[in-house]
């Protein structure tokens, strides 16, 4: 079946936060319930965050700890790929569904 949600893109608010549980070799991101419903994402699905010309694919986890913003990514290798100097903690990015998450 054709997944039309794969064609959807949204601008989202991203926060980079220390998160010992989710930082590791595989890129993981916490998604707010609101965004997950909008984008059609469930636990374990993959999302691509794009900021400027940099994209990173994350494994999504729907979490209450992302409520208030749209996405929380653990500080570390993958957050460093997306973060810029102007504000490495909070920034806006574009999100869409994708297949598979990045790993180191």
């Amino acid at each position: 079946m054709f997944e039309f949600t794969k064609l959807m893109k949204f601008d989202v608010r991203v926060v980079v936060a220390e998160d010992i549980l989710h930082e590791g070799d595989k890129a993981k991101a916490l998604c707010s319930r609101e965004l997950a419903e909008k984008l059609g994402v469930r636990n374990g699905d993959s999302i691509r965050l794009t900021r400027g010309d940099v994209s990173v694919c994350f494994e999504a986890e729907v979490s209450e700890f992302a409520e208030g913003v749209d996405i929380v990514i653990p500080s570390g290798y993958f957050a460093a790929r997306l973060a810029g100097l102007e504000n490495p903690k909070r920034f806006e990015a574009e999100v869409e569904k994708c297949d598979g998450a990045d790993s180191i």
Partner: protein
Amino acid sequence: MGVVCTACSCLCDDIVIKDGKIYHACRKGCMLLTGEREKTRVEGGEADVEKAVERARELLKKPLILGLDNVCCEAQKAALKLAEETGAALVDHSLLSGGELIMFARELGREIEFEKFRDEGYLSFYWGANPHNSLPRHLSRFTYYPRSGKRQRGYEEDRFLVVADVRRSETAKIAEKSKSGLFLKVEKDGELVDSLLKAAEGKAGKYVEAARVLKEIEKAEVNAIFGGSGLYWGLRDLTKLGELVEKLDISFVPLTSKANMRGFAELMMKKAGSLCYDFGEGREIGLEDLPAVFESCKSVLVVGADPMRTFPHSLVEKLAGKDVIIVNSLKSVTSRVIDVEVVIATELSSFSGGRMIRSDGVEVEISSQPSSQPESLRDAEVLEMLR
């Protein structure tokens, strides 16, 4: 005396390691103390320290010395001397997270020791910080949960927790669920500062909960704002926050997760007058100067850090093709993903002995401990050898 954990700037000194088991440490501390250790290598092959140091000295030309926030004060001093002698640029993480708050707290002069707060403190206000992850034992050792001194009834009656954050973090959830807590979900941190200032004048601002915060502050003499990096990046200009702290007559303590960032900031302010400094050019380094500094160096000496995890890759990419030397105790992403010329394995700060400065400005003595890797040298010794 226990082992001092150097995983974050709580610098917990009650860690016990017995029969291979670690007691009292948080998840972050356990990860540090049991982390996979680095091996001394030259161009990919294992080598002894003397050979590695010799090769590193050959490569150290107009270097950028990077990191230093997780090593002892002695190592930071040795790195500073090395930077002066080689004309190096000295850069830590403070420009990206925490440095401005440390400077702000030093200028304001309203800090409080964690132990004093543990014994007397009532309202702890975490702003732009999520200690549940960044300083996992901060609430239980110093602020919200302890029964100590004048606060024997702990969080049930003798403490109040306020969390201000853009998201509902783990710490925010604790405040939200507790009857002695309050979570302020902020859109813009500046608006909360305005609301609190207005509430102090008896006026209403955007956040009506500001009046409750002030009411709780009036209940005790010792209250504190613990500002995290989210607070700085939310405000950028800390002038009004200074006014607020003065007006509410409360303490302000910067929360930095890097174990000895405070120590490095103190050293640099004393010796160079700024957080980061280029000894080759003889000028201070600001956030906007970082791309040029990374671009212009000829070699990089990483000390106790993992730049591929902690610096934006737009910056780290500028180091491509340069000679990289790593002095570290634990295996890092940096040493895994990029070609490193020299890796010098050192003893973990928790075992090596020395001094560190906690984020509230208190000096913590770290006693040297028997290690699982007795052949490893201390960071300070290696940096002295590189001079």
